[in-house]
Each structure stands twice: as C-alpha cells, then as structure tokens.
C-alpha cells in the first residue's frame, strides 16, 4: 500500500510538471505539448515506467479492497452509539471513499485522453504530431467537466493529506523529528498538488470564455 501509494504520488509530480505546459500561450503550448506527448509515447523507458504505473494502480486498488474486507471482518457488530470520530480526521477514516472517487475519475480520465490519444484518430498539428492539446482544451470548455475535475482533485488532495504521512509510518519511520518533518512536507505536498492540478482546468475554462 505504502510503496504503490508513494510511487503514484511521485508520478503526480511528473504528470503535473508536464501538464503545466498547457498554461503557456495557446500556439506555443499546442506545439510544445504535442511534441512532449509524442516524446513520452515513443520512449522505451517512459513506457516501462508507465507499465509500473498501471501495475501500481491495480495493486493499490486490490490492497484497498483487501483492507476494507479485513476491516469489515474485524469490526464484528457495530456500535449503536458511536462518537469515536472525535479522535481522528474524517479523511483518514474515509480513504476508501476518497479512493473510489479517484478511481472513477481515473476511468473517465483514461478513456477521454489516454485511450483517445493512443488508439483514437486525432488530427495532426503544424509539426505533424497528434493534436492532444486541442483535445484537452476542447474538453475543458464544458463547465461540468471542469467541476468533475475539481471534485476529483479535491478528493485526491485529501487522500494525499492522510496518505503521504501514513505511508511513511507504514514503512517504519519512527524517529520523532523526521516524523514531524514528513507531516509538514505531506501537507505542503498535498496542497501543492491540489492547487497545481486545479489551476489547469480553471485556467483553460476561463481563458476560453474570454
């Protein structure tokens, strides 16, 4: 759980850096983003990492299902009057719910961009690269699509808020000083990822409305 979760978190950084190119002025962004996408698609190393990534998503999800099953079994009969919530954060108790939102989002996200890019027919840009940029930009013209993204990314943000520090505990970081460092860095990371990913659809949406 911890290893797959941390790998996915690491991927989020790379993915965000790549996608920030979408914020460049339109013409420049189109050419640069499309050639960047082609570069990724063509590189054998990137392909390998991509397979590890798919595997991580699957293993992480399977582990999540196993943990939920184990929780159900270990809980036995539930409390009739339960106020245990005061002792922990709501998102730490609802990692599975947040994960399911992320998972549903991933399915949509993969279908609309990844599948289209890999297997669909796309027009070519001035440099002869598949025009993923326009696909993305057009998608974010729809308000409901932007809202869907924001909900999913907020869910991801809360998932990371608990997940990143939790993963370090699971691995076995027990020194108090490093623990407080990871706790702070985890919050910074979760906020940075959330803001970073939310800015892109918002920027594209409002840019297109102007």
């Amino acid at each position, binding site marked *: 759980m911890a290893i797959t979760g941390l790998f996915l978190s690491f991927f989020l950084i790379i993915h965000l850096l790549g996608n920030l190119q979408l914020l460049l002025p339109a013409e420049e962004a189109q050419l640069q983003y499309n050639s960047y996408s082609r570069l990724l698609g063509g590189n054998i190393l990137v392909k390998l990492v991509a397979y590890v990534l798919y595997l991580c998503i699957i293993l992480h999800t399977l582990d999540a299902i196993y943990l939920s099953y184990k929780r159900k079994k270990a809980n036995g009969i539930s409390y009739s*009057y339960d106020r245990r919530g005061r002792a922990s954060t709501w998102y730490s108790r609802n990692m599975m719910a947040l994960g399911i939102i992320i998972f549903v989002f991933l399915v949509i996200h993969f279908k609309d961009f990844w599948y289209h890019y890999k297997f669909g027919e796309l027009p070519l840009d001035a440099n002869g690269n598949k025009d993923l940029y326009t696909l993305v930009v057009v998608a974010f013209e729809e308000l409901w699509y932007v809202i869907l993204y924001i909900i999913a990314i907020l869910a991801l943000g809360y998932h990371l808020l608990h997940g990143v520090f939790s993963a370090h505990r699971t691995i076995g970081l027990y020194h108090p000083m490093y623990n407080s460092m990871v706790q702070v860095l985890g919050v910074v990371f979760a906020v940075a990822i959330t803001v970073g990913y939310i800015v892109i659809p918002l920027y594209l949406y409002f840019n297109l409305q102007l």
Partner: protein
Amino acid sequence: MKINLKIWRQRDSQSKGEFKEYHLDEVSRDMSFLEMLDTLNIKLIKQGENPVEFDHDCREGICGQCGVMINGIAHGPLKNTTTCQLHMRSFNDGDTIYVEPFKAAAFPIVRDLKVNRSALDHIIAAGGYVSVDTGQAPEANSIPVTFEQAESAFDAAACIGCGACVASCKNSSAALFTSAKISHLAQLPQGDKETSTRVISMVNQMDEEGFGHCTNTEACQVECPEDISVLNIARMNYEYNRARVVKK
C-alpha cells in the same frame, strides 16, 4: 444529581443485545463512574433484577480491566483516563449516558458490558517476553542501560492492556497494543536480541486473532488511557519490515 442511563444488556455472546434505560436520582459528583454503576446494581438487585455485568479490578487506573464505551468513546469523555478514574463530575445533572461494551470481532461479549480480551494475552504469549534461563539474578549493572533508553522503553511499557485502542479504531486493529510491547523490548539490550522473531510472531498472532490492519488514523493514542505513542506502531513496522526484508 439525576442521571439517565442507556446500558447495553446482552445475555451472552450468541444473543442479541440492546440498550435498556435506567434512572438514578442520587448520584454524587464525587462518585467514580464504576461506583455509579455499583449504585445502579444495588438498586437492581433489590428489585430482583440481574445486575449489569462489567469488568473491573484495581479501580485505580493500572490494571486495564474496566474499559467500556461511554457516550460512544472508549473510557468516556476525558482523555488519557480509564473508566474507573472517570468521575461523575464530568457529567451534568439530567444527562443521558450511553454505556456499551467494547466491540470487535476479536473481543466476544461475555455478558452486558463484559468482553473477553484473551486475544490480547495470546499476542503477548506469542513473543512479548525475554527468554532467559532461570537462576540467580545477574548483577544489575552488568548490562548498561542509559536513563533515556530506560525512560523511553518505560513509556511503551506503560500499556495496561485495556483494549481501548482496538475499540477506538475504525479497523479494530490492535497495532498500538502490540507495538507497545515490541517497542518496549526492542529498546532494551536484554529484549532487543529477539526483536526479529518476536515482531514476526506477534504480528502474525495479531492477524490470527482477527484484528484489523492499521491505517494510521491515530485515534488509538487519543483515547489510550496511557497516551501510548503511535510512533511505536511505526517502530513495529520498521522492525517487521527489517525482519522480513533484511534478516534471514
């Protein structure tokens, strides 16, 4: 003061339980929570009803027998306090108090508020000790232990085995309890020798007893009467991963 009680009554592990309502009119603010239950039981016995069964022993916060859920929280509203050390001054005149047993698949209900916590004993029996040959006590200073080491080990050793961590955990995990013992012994030279085998067998036993998996929500430390640190869980994970990956 007047207190309304909704207490979980259940005949045995097989039958279905339910809340029953009771009223007490003359509760003193200085009574402990258990003394308040004693008053109720005297009343019930006088009326020819079965008294409410609950566990207790020392009544001074050290034996770990007395845990129940009070208003949905293990050992009641005060932090780092056992049920026996909770006093009625923490409640107000006319309050309704819900009292329920700790609930987890690994803690079958014996009757009413009394649960069987033997599963915790099985975890200790799986490795929560130091193997030494019997004989004369060795010279105390032959193995040096620093003050800090001793204090830190003692903080972990303070666990009284009450099971509030399990009851407070959404996963019904016994990670805080188990890690407290592993951490206690791993920090002392006499205990550390067996850390690898100990951590594997205690963690396996924890699974076998039907406890859940820790996901670091940290509810356990908040409700633990001894304020056992969740960092002990991280140390247990460290020792477990090390025993699995590095040591043969």
